[in-house]
C-alpha cells in the first residue's frame, strides 16, 4: 500500500490553472525527484501535500485512508514534514533551539514550565549523530555551513518522526562538498524507511539519489518513471517540452 496517494489533483487560482489532473503515488522508503520548470506547478503540488491549501478537486490518501488537509498542522500530525528552501531557521539561535523550535521540552515547576536545555541538547546531538552530521547542538546556526543548516532542518523532521519529507531545493546555493553531504542525508533518511519528495532543478542530484523522477509541465504530469530507465537528456526534453511525454 502506498504511503501517499494523490488522485486527479487540480488546483486553480482564479483564472490560472496551476495543476491539472495530477496523480502521484509514493511508497515508504522511496525518493521521488519532482522536476519541472519555474511555474510548472511543483510548489503548488508541494503546498497541497503539506496542507498549506486544499486542492480545487482530486483526492489524497495516506496509508490508503482518504485525508483532507486544511492547515499545515493537519499534514504534520500524520507525519508529513517540509524542509523549506530557505530552511526556516533562526540564525541567532543554536542548532538545538532550532530543532525544538515550537515544540520545546520543558520541566515543570508548579504552574511554570522551564526549558529543559540539557534534554534538548542531548536529543539534538543524538539526532545529528544519527544523521552522521558534524553539527554541534550548542552552535549558533549563524556560524554553520549550508550542509549543517540542512542537517538542522532535517533533524527537525526526524524529531517529528516524519514518514514523508518534502524537500524544496535542498541543494540550491550550497557548495559541491555540501551537496554531497545533503545527498548522504537523503540516502540515510531513505534507508530508515522515510519517503522523500525532492524538488530540485539540479539534474545530477536527482539522478544521484532519486528512485523515480516525476516531471511536471504547465501543471500536468508528463512523466513518472524509474530513474534507471530515464536519462538527464530525456528529462530535460520533458521539462522544456521538446518531448511531449514519456
Amino acid at each position, binding site marked *: 500500500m502506498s504511503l501517499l496517494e494523490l488522485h486527479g489533483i487540480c488546483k486553480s487560482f482564479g483564472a490560472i490553472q496551476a495543476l491539472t489532473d495530477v496523480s502521484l503515488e509514493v511508497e515508504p522508503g522511496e525518493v521521488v525527484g519532482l522536476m519541472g520548470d519555474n511555474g510548472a506547478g511543483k510548489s503548488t503540488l508541494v503546498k497541497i501535500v503539506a496542507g498549506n491549501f486544499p486542492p480545487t478537486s482530486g483526492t489524497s490518501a495516506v496509508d490508503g485512508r482518504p485525508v483532507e488537509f486544511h492547515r499545515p498542522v493537519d499534514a504534520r500530525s500524520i507525519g508529513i514534514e517540509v524542509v523549506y528552501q530557505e530552511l526556516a531557521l533562526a540564525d541567532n539561535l543554536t542548532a538545538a533551539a532550532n530543532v525544538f523550535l515550537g515544540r520545546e521540552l520543558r520541566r515543570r515547576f508548579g504552574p511554570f514550565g522551564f*526549558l529543559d536545555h540539557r534534554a534538548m541538547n542531548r536529543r539534538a546531538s543524538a539526532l545529528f549523530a544519527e544523521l552522521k552530521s558534524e553539527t554541534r547542538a550548542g*552552535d549558533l546556526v549563524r*556560524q554553520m555551513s549550508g550542509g549543517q543548516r540542512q542537517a538542522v532542518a532535517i533533524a527537525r523532521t526526524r524529531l517529528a518522526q516524519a514518514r514523508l519529507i518534502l524537500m524544496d531545493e535542498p541543494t540550491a546555493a550550497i557548495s559541491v562538498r555540501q551537496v554531497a553531504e545533503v545527498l548522504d542525508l537523503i540516502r540515510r533518511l531513505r534507508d530508515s524507511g522515510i519517503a522523500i519528495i525532492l524538488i530540485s532543478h539540479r539534474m545530477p542530484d536527482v539522478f544521484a539519489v532519486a528512485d523515480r523522477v516525476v516531471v511536471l509541465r504547465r501543471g500536468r504530469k508528463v512523466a513518472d518513471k524509474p530513474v534507471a530507465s530515464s536519462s538527464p537528456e530525456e528529462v530535460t526534453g520533458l521539462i522544456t517540452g521538446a518531448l511531449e511525454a514519456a
Partner: protein
Amino acid sequence: MTTEFSNVRQRPWYLHPHLNSQALYVFAALVILVAAISVVSSAFLTTGNLLNISKNFAYIGIASLGVTLVIITAGIDLSVGSVMALTAIVTSLLFRATAEWPTAAVPGLTLAICVTAGLALAAFVGTVNGLLIARLGLSPFVTTLGTLSICRGLGYVITEGRGVIVTGPDVSIFYAITDGTLLGIPTPLLFLLALAVWMGVFLHQTAWGRYVFAIGGNERAASLTGVPVERVKVSIYVASSLMAGFAGILMAGWLGSVPANLAFGYELRIIAAAVIGGANLSGGAGGPAGAVIGAALIEVIRNGLVLSRVSAYWQDTLVGLIIILAVLVDRLRERRAS
C-alpha cells in the same frame, strides 16, 4: 568553534550568560568611567550621590527593559515616554477621585485599585500597539509614533496642561513603596533589579522567551514552525507598555506630583539605553543586563558631567556619541566573532 556568549546556550543556569558580550563591554566602560569621574570629583563616590544616580536611572532602566523585549523581536516602541506620563497622570487623578470612596477605609485598597487601573490603561495602549503591528502588519515605528502622540495629547487634555499633585488616602504607603528604601537601597532600584532578573529568566528559560528571540532572528521561520508569532508580539508590546507605565508611577512617587510633560522625550534615552546595552534594532539580540547597564551608563555620564562642572548642555551631545560608539563596538565584535 563555540561562541563565548550567545543568547541561547546549554549551561547550568547559574553560569548562563545573561550578560551577553556587548553588556560586558559596556560594563567595562562603565567601570572605567566611574573610576575616571571619581578622580575628578570627590563627591561622586559618596553614598548619597550613588543612591541618587541609582534612583535616577531606575526609571529609565525599567522602561528600557520593556523596550529591549520589543527590540529583540525587531520592533520598536516609541510610545514609552508618553505611556509613562499618561499612566502616572491617570493613577494620580484616580487617587484623588477615589478619596471619598468607602474603599478608602481599607489601607492600601485605594492604592491597589488606582495602580491596577493605571497599569490596565498602559496594558491597553500596549495591546493596541501590538494588534496594529502584529495583526495588521503596520510598521512598529509609525504605529508607536502615533500612540506616542495620542498618549501625550491625552495627558495634556486630561490635565489641561497642569500638573497633578499626588494625594489621597494611601499616599504614605504609596511613597513608602515608590520612593522608600529597603535595607538602605532605594525601592525603584530594587524594582529594576527584580524585573531584570524576571526578564532574564523569562527570556532564557521559557519557551515564550525563546519565541521572542526566534521572531527577531527569522519571523517567517518562527511562524512556519508553529510559533504563535502574533500572540508573542502582542504580549511583548503589552509588556513594554506595562513596564513604562510602572516606571511612570514610580516617578510620580519620586516627584510627589505629575507634571503634564512628565518623561517628555524619555523614549530616546530609554531606547538609547537598550541599544547601548546591545539590543540590536534589526532584531534577535539583547538582554536585561544590557538595558540596566546602558541606563546606568547614561546616568553616570550625566551625573559626572554635572559634578565635573561641565555645562549641562554637553550632556545630550555626549550621550549621542556614546550611542554611536556602542553600536560601533557591537559591529566590530560581531565581525570578529564570525
